C-alpha cells in the first residue's frame, strides 16, 4: 500500500472480508491471472452478478455477500463499515450455460458451443468455455450432434428437468444432513389440521430445495420444475385470510 504508516493494515483502502476455499493458497506461482473476479449474468434474474474463476483448476465459484443492518468490522487496528462478509462457493457452470442455451433455443437449431455462449453485456462469459470437462456436463441439458469432429448442441427441456430433479434430490439430502429448518409450512398446516404433518415433511424439503435451485434458473423453468416434482401449484400461504382457511378446511373435511 502507498501509505505504509498504518501498520500494514491497508486501512485507507476499502477492505473486503472474504471466505475462500483453502486450496486457493496452492495456486500456481507462475501464472499471474489464475484467480479472477468477473461480472457475469445471474441466470435467474438476467442481471449482473459476481463470480470467481480459478483458472488453474478451471473451476467456477459464485460470490455471495452476507449483509445485515448495523454491523461493522474491527480488522486489526482499523475499522471497516458495512460488516459485509463475502463467500466464494463452487458453482455448477451448467446453470450459466443453461441461460445461454435457453436464449439460443429460440432459433431452434443445433449450434456449436462458442456460438451459444455470446453476450455483449457480459463479454467475460467466454471464460466459461475454458472450464473443465464442459463437454461431459452438456449432455445433462442438451441434445448433441457431431459433424466432422465438431460438436453441435441444442437445448433439451426434457433432459434439463430430469437433471434439475436430481439436483433437488441431492439438495434435499443436504438439507436433512444440515438440519435446516424447512418446517414453517408444516407448522402452519399443523395448526389447522393435525393429521397431515408427517406426510408434509418430505414435501416441505422438496419445496425448500426447489426454492434454492430456483435461484439459479429462470422463472419459467422453475414453474416447469415445480410441475415435474409434482409440487402443489400454489403452496398454502403462511398467513392465509381466515375465510380462505375455513374454505380449505371445508374442502378437506368432505
Amino acid at each position, binding site marked *: *500500500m*502507498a501509505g505504509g504508516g498504518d501498520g*500494514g*493494515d*491497508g*486501512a*485507507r*483502502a*476499502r*477492505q*473486503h*472480508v*472474504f*471466505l*475462500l*476455499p*483453502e486450496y*486457493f*493458497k496452492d*495456486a500456481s*506461482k507462475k501464472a*499471474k491471472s*489464475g*484467480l*479472477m*473476479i*468477473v*461480472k457475469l449474468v445471474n441466470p435467474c434474474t438476467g442481471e*449482473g452478478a*459476481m463470480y*470467481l474463476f480459478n483458472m488453474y483448476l478451471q473451476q467456477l465459484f*459464485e460470490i*455471495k455477500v452476507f449483509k445485515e*443492518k448495523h*454491523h*461493522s*468490522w*474491527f*480488522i*486489526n*487496528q*482499523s*475499522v471497516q*463499515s*458495512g*460488516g459485509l*462478509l*463475502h*463467500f466464494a*462457493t463452487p458453482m*455448477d457452470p451448467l446453470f450459466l450455460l443453461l441461460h445461454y442455451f435457453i436464449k439460443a433455443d429460440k432459433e431452434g437449431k443445433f449450434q456449436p458451443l462458442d456460438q451459444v455462449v455470446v453476450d455483449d453485456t457480459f463479454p*467475460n462469459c467466454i471464460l466459461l468455455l475454458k472450464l473443465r470437462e464442459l463437454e461431459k456436463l452438456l449432455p445433462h441439458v442438451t441434445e448433441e450432434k457431431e459433424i466432422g469432429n465438431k460438436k453441435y448442441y441444442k437445448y433439451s427441456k426434457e433432459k434439463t428437468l430430469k437433471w434439475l430433479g*436430481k*439436483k433437488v434430490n*441431492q*439438495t434435499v439430502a*443436504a*438439507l436433512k444432513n444440515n438440519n*435446516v429448518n424447512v418446517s414453517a409450512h408444516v407448522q402452519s398446516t399443523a395448526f389447522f389440521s393435525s393429521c397431515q404433518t408427517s406426510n408434509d415433511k418430505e414435501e416441505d424439503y422438496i419445496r425448500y430445495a426447489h426454492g434454492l435451485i430456483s435461484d*439459479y434458473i429462470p422463472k419459467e423453468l422453475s414453474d416447469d420444475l415445480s410441475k415435474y416434482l409434482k409440487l402443489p401449484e400454489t403452496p398454502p400461504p403462511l398467513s392465509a385470510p381466515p375465510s380462505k382457511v375455513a374454505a380449505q378446511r371445508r374442502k378437506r373435511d368432505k
Partner: protein
Amino acid sequence: MDSSDERAVEKQRVHIRPDTLRDAAPGTLHLLPCEIPASRPAPVDCFFTPALRQGAHGLEASFRGRSLRGEEVTVPPGLVGYVMVMEEEGEVSGRTPYFPRAGREPEQRELAEAPEALERDFDRFMGATASFSGFTLWGLETLPGPDAKVRGALTWPSLAAAIHAQVPED
C-alpha cells in the same frame, strides 16, 4: 464490494494475487453490532482489546459506553478467511499501462497485441492483507446466539456444495 469496486468489475477482471493468499499474516477480526460510518485506522488495541473480559456468559466488552457480549465464530471447514484490498489504479504491478503509450500508432498496437492482451490492460488487482480462521461476533447486551443471521450464512457453503455438485449419470 462498494460501488466503485462494482464499477471496476463491470468491464474488467479483478485478479487476486495468489502469493498474497500464501503470505497473509493472521489477523484479528471483530464483527460489531453497530454501524460505524467511517472506514479508517483505529486504535483497537488501545481501547477495545484491553477491555475484553471472559464473563459468565461469554466475552464481555464495551463500545461507546454500551455493553457488548461476544462469542467466537469459526470459519466453516475447508474455507479460509481473508481481508482483501484493491490495489490503487496506476500502482506499479508489472502490468501494461491503461492508456496506449504515445508515439504508437493504433494500427500497430492492434497488430502487436492479441485481443486478450488488450483486455488485460483494463484489469485490476486485489491482494490479501490478512487471513483468519475465526472472528469474534458481538451482540448488544446479549450474546448473538445460534439464531444470529451470520451463523445461518456460515451454513451456506455446505448447502451450496450440494446444490452445485455434479449429478450422477443414469
